[in-house]
């Protein structure tokens, strides 16, 4: 988190949001999506406690239509700036209005482990 807060506005706009591959996606009510992110297995989730109390192995996060639109634009290729542009165009918002909303939403997705932000140059360095 501290690394994230050190990002400048420019760094953040250049970052590429990449979805967590382990996230499951289901259709939700009202045209949204329900994302399931696997939870780390804690000691109390294992048998015998786990036999008695069946803990969920996934945290579910419901996205409304706006959230779904942003999630779908996070394709691992587009930068945050491009995601903001797409959101602004879709909802006829100014860039700054869209930026505030999208950045806030992306931070929440990162916090919940649904998305990571990478830089394009690092992505290009990968074999």
């Amino acid at each position, binding site marked *: 988190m501290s690394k994230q807060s050190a990002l400048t506005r420019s760094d953040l706009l250049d970052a590429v949001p990449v979805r967590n591959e382990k996230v499951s996606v289901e259709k939700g009510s009202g045209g949204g999506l329900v994302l399931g992110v696997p939870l780390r297995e804690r000691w109390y989730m294992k048998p015998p406690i786990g036999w008695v109390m069946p803990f969920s192995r996934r945290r579910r996060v419901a996205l409304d239509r*706006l959230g779904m639109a942003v999630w779908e634009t996070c394709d691992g290729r587009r930068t945050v700036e491009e995601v903001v542009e797409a959101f602004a165009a879709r909802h006829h918002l100014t860039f700054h*209005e869209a930026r*505030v909303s999208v950045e806030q939403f992306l931070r929440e997705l990162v916090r919940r482990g649904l998305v990571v932000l990478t830089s394009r140059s690092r992505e290009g360095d990968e074999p």
Partner: protein
Amino acid sequence: MDRLQHIAWLGMRLAVPTDWEIVRHAVRPEKGRLVLVDRRRQRLQLSWVRTPTAPDLEQAMADYRSRDVEENPDRTFSPLASVGRWRGFRRHEEQAVLTRAGQFDPRLRRWMEVVVEWPDGLEAILEEKVLRGSGAAEPDEHSAEWRAFGLDVRTPPTWVLQEATVKPADVRLAFRDGRRDATVRRLGAPDAWYDGDLEEFLHKQVVGAKVRASAREHNGHAACLGESRLARSRLGEWLGMGRPRLDLVWLCPAAHAVFQVTTRARGPAVPPEQFVVRCCGQGGGKR
């Protein structure tokens, strides 16, 4: 880049590129500032302070410049040709340029200072357009003009801005005139939340009072006027007492926004139409 938007705020005007947006604003005419950014960095700051006497403009800018030279000895400075009432100078650091200019408006009794940043090099034509389009607005004895954050409003002259609340897709300007107050609101992204029923929207907005809604037309769009009374008690409500509240709401498909004008008064109700809100070129004649 040369497409300009015109901002009107507290009796001042600004002409800036359309992709520069306000991120800080003040509502007091005595002292404050507007800060505008492009996508990545700060581009313009307009600050103002009310002064009882006119300062010596040339001397004030010379003082600014010598202070700036002292603080930044490794940078170069050049004079700025006067544009309108603006006098100032430029500061250069490699390709980045900073334009700093000041002026005093005798009518508003306001000292105004503008700082424009050109991180990728000076755009002289744009600099002149920005300076020429900025300063004190032409006075209008019949109304005051507010144009910012996607809102374009003309208020009766005695109304004073109290607060501006700016959230993504939800901008409110609150005005007051003695015991009367009014709010002008612009709600964007209606495709995400608005189901097309203005009356239902109104009922959700007015809490704790019965609303009598009637359909009408406003700015060429279907609109809804809500009349209610804000009573302090249930008894007051039954007796028809309380402050009259009027709400005028409409959807402008071209502006992709729902507009709402609310007036509340102690005494006679204030017609919301007194607040001339332009949405898609409609509403209130030539500017």
